[in-house]
């Protein structure tokens, strides 16, 4: 599979084809689909972190005009499959975390449902709970494997020996907080149950994933479940897997057949039960020789999971391949706590892990008296250390050099606290990052001739705001050798061929490869002048090159930080990101993705932190006034570029994923710039003024 296509549409900065719909408000998001006589659901959430529901008194809620039903574990129908405890909604009296759904009110209006939910009185048998993540816990355990199938621990060479004989060493601990994904559009489900057929308008990153899960849990044939999601207002991983909200809505619709049920979470509800990024405690040890070559890398991670369901983030996975060394060890240990289930959040594993590694690399460069770019260059590996395979393309050094030039890195005085502008201390920082090219199974695509040179291209992929509508149209146009105006793309519906989740930056690789295959077969069978109705469906072709090459995207990140020496306020007036991601499909939406990723990384560096109150077991800063993400005023100039990278091995487009690489190196670049500005090395994110005031 080395047919890299440099077509006419791929690579162009095509305007979003759904843009006019979005700016005129006609693009329908989950809550906005028209349904007849809908009812509204508002959940009752547990106010304890562990225990049992002893008694529920719903009489005053039920007495409220407009209330249709109050659902609790006492009257909820039994689900067909309750193995997944996160999704076994209202199946028992057990409470496993604070904020868990212990009931729901369904009413004729949202306002009545919300009011009634407050009138439901729940009495608990409370048990003591445990939500504190600490490195000295005695019950830390090694999971069988990590998210995405990574090994829990790896070891090669003699790390301890190399560390004890190294000329230069580092042994530091870095921590990252719990963070919540918080897409702009909250999780939403509209469930319509009609004579045994279920339709869900769901805010999801994968309609087929939702269908599979809901069908299993409710014991339905898959073809009785239809999931529709033409437009989604962001997910950042939190909509990658169905959560309890979708099951609860479906369950309610099952109990009140004939009336659609709508449930959109409030912002506060987004902080329990739809996933989050685990906090991490990461100890990094590095050893280097006199020339600044790494002789040992050790990365030990402590993070959390939920007692009811394991999620083990692959925090040190990037450390296994990022730099060359002969002695390397990585470990992951979990604390299982009485908390909601952590899940994917943009670059799970890579984002927190690379933050720690890249700050450690900055510290080590200083100890080796080397420029941080030169230090990284000296430790650039020849091959993927984990598999021994060569890279299909690895242009990290080119990114660092190009970025250094764009940013104006040359001549930088490495001395901390050396530059100032009045009260502002000024520093610059650099970091590197990688993100793997993931491929996921289970995608098919269909090409059908509509006559007159037009084609329908159908695939159940979802556009979560990233530009999928446009990018897949461009790919389909080149795959069929026609203009983009000849393509009618259909996505976001399980009535279309099955597609993998929009996650792991895998969408374009998987969906695009499949569209290419369907187009190739279509032309093979029906030629250049097909009859109307000619149709071909194809699955994702194998890429044998994955056996021969390691495939990853790379990036280099530069940031300037200004820190007010009186107040510890940090401002980042400019950042540069240069990426090696193969062929970029759409120059405009790609640029937006990179800017968005880098901005989210800026927020990770300076703002985002979910504060769990250990006495209660829940996140107390659960709104946007208290949980800070960057505002426009926090985001300065973001300069984004990508290098020309031809990768004939990765897929027919020659493209690598871009949804996540933008965030991965951005926090460390900011953190390193803050250190350079102030001389204060803050090793626990976020870097807030209180940590800089001395």
């Amino acid at each position, binding site marked *: 599979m080395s047919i890299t296509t440099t077509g006419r549409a791929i690579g162009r900065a095509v305007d979003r084809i759904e843009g006019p719909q979005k700016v005129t408000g006609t693009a329908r998001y989950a809550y906005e689909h028209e349904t007849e006589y809908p009812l509204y659901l508002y959940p009752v959430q547990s106010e304890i972190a562990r225990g049992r529901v002893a008694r529920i008194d719903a009489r005053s809620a039920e007495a409220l005009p407009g209330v249709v039903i109050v659902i609790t574990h006492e009257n909820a129908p039994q689900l067909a499959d309750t193995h997944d405890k996160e999704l076994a909604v209202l199946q028992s009296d057990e409470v496993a975390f604070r904020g868990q759904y212990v009931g729901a009110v369904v009413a004729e209006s949202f306002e009545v449902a919300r009011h009634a939910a407050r009138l439901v009185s729940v009495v608990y048998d409370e048990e003591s709970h445990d939500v504190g993540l600490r490195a000295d816990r005695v019950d830390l355990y090694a999971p069988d494997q990590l998210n995405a199938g990574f090994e829990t621990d790896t070891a090669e060479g003699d790390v301890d020996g190399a560390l004890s004989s190294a000329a230069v060493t580092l042994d530091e601990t870095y921590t990252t907080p719990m963070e919540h994904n918080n897409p702009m559009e909250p999780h939403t489900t509209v469930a319509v149950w009609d004579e045994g057929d279920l339709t869900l308008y769901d805010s999801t990153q994968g309609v087929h994933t939702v269908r599979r899960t809901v069908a299993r849990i409710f014991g339905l044939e898959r073809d009785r479940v239809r999931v529709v999601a033409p437009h989604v207002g962001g997910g950042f991983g939190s909509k990658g897997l169905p959560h309890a909200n979708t099951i609860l809505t479906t369950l309610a619709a099952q109990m009140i057949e004939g009336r659609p049920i709508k449930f959109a979470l409030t912002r506060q509800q987004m902080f329990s039960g739809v996933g989050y990024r685990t906090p991490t405690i990461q100890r990094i040890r590095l050893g280097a020789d006199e020339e600044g070559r790494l002789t040992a890398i050790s990365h030990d991670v402590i993070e959390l999971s939920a007692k009811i369901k394991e999620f083990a983030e692959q925090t040190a996975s990037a450390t296994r391949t990022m730099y060359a060394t002969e002695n390397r060890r990585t470990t992951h240990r979990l604390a299982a706590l009485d908390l909601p289930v952590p899940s994917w959040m943009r670059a799970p594993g890579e984002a927190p892990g690379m933050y720690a590694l890249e700050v450690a690399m900055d510290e080590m460069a200083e100890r080796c008296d080397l420029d941080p770019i030169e230090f990284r260059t000296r430790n650039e590996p020849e091959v993927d250390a984990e598999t021994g395979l060569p890279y299909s393309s690895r242009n990290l050094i080119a990114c660092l050099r190009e970025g250094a030039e764009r940013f104006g890195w040359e001549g930088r005085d490495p001395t901390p606290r050396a530059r100032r502008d009045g*009260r502002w201390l000024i520093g610059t920082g650099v970091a590197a990052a990688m993100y793997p090219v993931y491929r996921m199974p289970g995608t098919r695509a269909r090409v059908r001739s509509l006559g007159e040179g037009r084609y329908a291209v159908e695939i159940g992929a979802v556009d979560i705001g990233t530009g999928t509508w446009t990018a897949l149209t461009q790919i389909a146009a080149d795959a069929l050798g026609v203009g983009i105006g000849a393509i009618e793309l259909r996505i976001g519906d399980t009535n279309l061929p099955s597609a993998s989740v929009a996650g792991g930056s895998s969408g374009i690789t998987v969906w695009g490869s499949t569209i290419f295959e369907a187009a190739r077969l279509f032309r093979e069978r029906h030629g250049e002048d097909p009859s109307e109705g000619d149709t071909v469906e194809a699955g994702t072709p194998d890429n044998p090159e994955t056996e021969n090459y390691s495939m990853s995207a790379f990036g280099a990140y530069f940031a300037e930080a200004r820190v007010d020496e009186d107040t510890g306020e940090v401002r980042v007036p400019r950042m540069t990101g240069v990426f090696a991601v193969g062929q970029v499909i759409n120059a405009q939406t790609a640029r937006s993705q990179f800017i968005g990723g880098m901005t989210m990384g800026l927020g990770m560096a300076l703002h985002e932190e979910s504060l769990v109150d250990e006495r209660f077991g829940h996140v107390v800063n659960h709104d946007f006034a208290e949980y800070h993400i960057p*505002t426009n005023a926090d985001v300065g100039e973001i300069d984004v570029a990508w290098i020309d990278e031809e990768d004939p091995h990765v897929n027919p487009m020659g493209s690598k994923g871009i949804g996540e690489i933008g965030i991965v190196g951005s926090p460390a670049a900011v953190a390193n710039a803050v250190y350079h500005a102030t001389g204060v090395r803050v090793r626990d994110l976020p870097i807030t003024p209180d940590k800089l005031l001395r």
Partner: protein
Amino acid sequence: MKPYRYQRARDIPGAISALAEEPNATFLAGGTNLVDLLKLGVMEPEVLVDVRRLTSDSVEELPDGGVRIGAAVTNSNLAADRTIRSRYPVLSEALLSGASGQLRNLATTGGNLLQHTRCVYWQDTTTPCNKREPGSGCSALEGHNKNHAILGASEHCVATHPSDMAVAMTALDAFVVVQGRNGEHRIPIEELHRLPGDEPWRDTTLEHGELITAVDLPLLDLAANSKYRKVRERASYAFALVSVAAALDVGEDGTVRDVRLALGGVAHKPWRATKAEEALRGEPINKANLRAAADIELEDAELLRDNAFKVPLARNVIVRTLLDLAEGR
């Protein structure tokens, strides 16, 4: 949200008597704070009496050289007012540092003063809070309290007042014009908000049914040399960690002729820094004196688990703001 009755009063006496008849009624103006609290179930009034159109929405010059700000003047309009910008720049700056453009377009002068103190536990009806449920305990005392008070707090409540505008008005010796059933009276703004003491549920000294109709700013020449400095965790749209409103008059000999200083983000009310003011009057303006004065003001600070940084932060910002004013920056 509990259903409530909405009334629009025809005039000020009507509004006041509407509240007098219903103990669980409250005034509604811009609604930018109250509506949030209704949705969260933190406040559950029976009746909302809309007073938005009852009071003046203009800024007028007073015969004594001061100005009167109608209670219905929006935060946006007040910030943009020419007189305010030239004679009381600290007030305009404070307003513009608060909330967002959309919120400032709705929020009123009277409503801004009556914002409730902020605390994540108060806003979360699932946790104990003495302000919400007297006697249930203060969750912030041993909880996440980075944003909480360092001055004037009590064991019952450590919340802080969020208004930027009120901090500037406190530095400007403003008077709040209040109408009640027994007529109109003016109270110094320092006496409007109160410290929590053992009645943390009372944010202000107003009696039930009293309505703020205007705010008077007295003639204050040194206010022309004034500024507001707000420190927050992001560049925009965040409550103050610490803020400083200051006005300064330095004589030709380099000594402080007069000074006004108020702090935000440190207490249950806008904090007038009278001790620091006294320490500075007549003293040469320099970093050491400013630092010493700030230290005098902050010497009574009582620190919680997460908020010790507010002491050096407040000191640094006091020093920097007054130095900037002295140097004409």
